[in-house]
């Protein structure tokens, strides 16, 4: 049986590269912290914000239930440690507060595929294939290993997950976990969120044939993508599945007809990439 689930939004960082408190940045009319708490709330028994001791009375953070760090200068892992110490029998859905593109579908997918018999469930980064520690579920069984890890003088949550027993999932929306540490990254994320820029995620159906089917290991899939065009979608999937074919060698069909690579994708589109043909 799964352990009950609490939620933890990490908002104890110093936002040094951003130059401003990341939790307080605006995201879709709210602060990033409020947005993250709202995303989390429907899925957990209680949602907490992780804070440093000196942030407890900060007006933005004071409105939420808090878990206060017990270690100085450990970074995000201090928040998880403190949470596990306070509620050792709960699993923790941990979210960074600086994931402006995180969507509800990505959280739902994570929880639907949660493997509570393992130490954690996390996404495999679409960029480098490594676990993403700051949108993940940590089971009570991870606590002993985490405490030993920190006691050993280490504090990188990603390296912790690499050595833990983790269920790794592919991201349904490869941009969802893009974080924003600098003003430039934040501006890029806000541009992607702006519906006027046409760049929110779309639900797409992709079918694979021949060599691409073999390399993807599947005939079709439904996915969420932030790709604006067929070409961007191919680039995204080529990274994920390590397709050997360059897009220049392929054609693309959208909704059953040949289309230009630059065609903007719309929600619900069915996309087929066409490797070099060899009929007859």
């Amino acid at each position, binding site marked *: 049986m799964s352990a009950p689930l609490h939620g933890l939004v990490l908002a104890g960082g110093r936002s040094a590269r951003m130059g401003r408190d990341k939790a307080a940045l605006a995201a879709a009319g709210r602060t990033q912290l409020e947005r993250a708490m709202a995303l989390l709330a429907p899925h957990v028994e209680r949602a907490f914000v992780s804070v440093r001791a000196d942030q407890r009375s900060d007006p933005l953070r004071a409105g939420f239930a808090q878990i206060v760090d017990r270690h100085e200068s450990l970074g995000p892992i201090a928040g998880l440690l403190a949470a596990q110490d306070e509620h050792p029998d709960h699993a923790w859905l941990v979210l960074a507060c600086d994931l402006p593109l995180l969507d509800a579908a990505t959280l739902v997918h994570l929880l639907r595929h949660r493997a509570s018999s393992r130490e954690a469930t996390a996404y495999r980064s679409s960029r480098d294939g490594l676990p993403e520690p700051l949108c993940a579920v940590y089971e009570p069984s991870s606590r002993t290993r985490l405490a030993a890890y920190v006691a050993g003088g280490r504090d990188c949550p990603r390296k912790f997950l690499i050595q833990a027993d983790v269920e790794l999932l592919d991201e349904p929306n490869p941009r969802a976990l893009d974080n924003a540490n600098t003003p430039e990254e934040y501006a890029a994320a806000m541009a992607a969120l702006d519906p006027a820029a046409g760049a929110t995620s779309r639900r797409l159906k992709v079918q694979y*044939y021949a060599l691409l089917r073999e390399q993807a290991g599947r005939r079709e899939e439904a996915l969420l993508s932030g790709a604006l065009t067929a070409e961007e979608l191919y680039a995204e999937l080529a990274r994920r599945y390590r397709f050997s074919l360059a897009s220049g*060698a392929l054609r693309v069909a959208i909704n059953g007809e040949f289309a230009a690579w630059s065609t903007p994708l719309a929600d619900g589109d069915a996309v087929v990439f066409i490797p070099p043909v060899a009929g*007859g």
Partner: protein
Amino acid sequence: MPFRFSRTPLDPAALRVALADPACGGFAAFEGWVRDHNEGTPVRRLEYEAFEPLAVREGERILAEASVRFGVAHAACVHRVGELPVGELAVWVGVSAPHRDEAFRACRYIIDEVKHRLPIWKKEHYANGDSGWVNCERCAAPHAHEAAQPHDGRQAHGV
């Protein structure tokens, strides 16, 4: 103008009957067979796969183009999908026209366009046990060699 796929062996005699027309004095057909070698490598069998809805639509466009361009009366094409042994009929094109010249030319046009335009793929299974998708194995992306390296992210992270 019919274009279709078939999962079972083709019968050219039956296909030909459908193109019969008293106004036509010429009939030309092309049959593509599974050959036992390709570029010097012995081939045991072929596997055809198609994105059928688009291939049928594009195939019918080719037949319509041939009809307009050469003034033929009837044209048809059937392509196999699935596993085919050496010697099997893989594609059949048939054209009937008032005179032989347009029948020959339309038939040639149709098979050439079918080979170049239809989303159909062919995997060759070689006598030595290897296999490969025809036309796909030599157009690797420039980064493919890099991407094919063992994933070393763990080392990069010092683990």
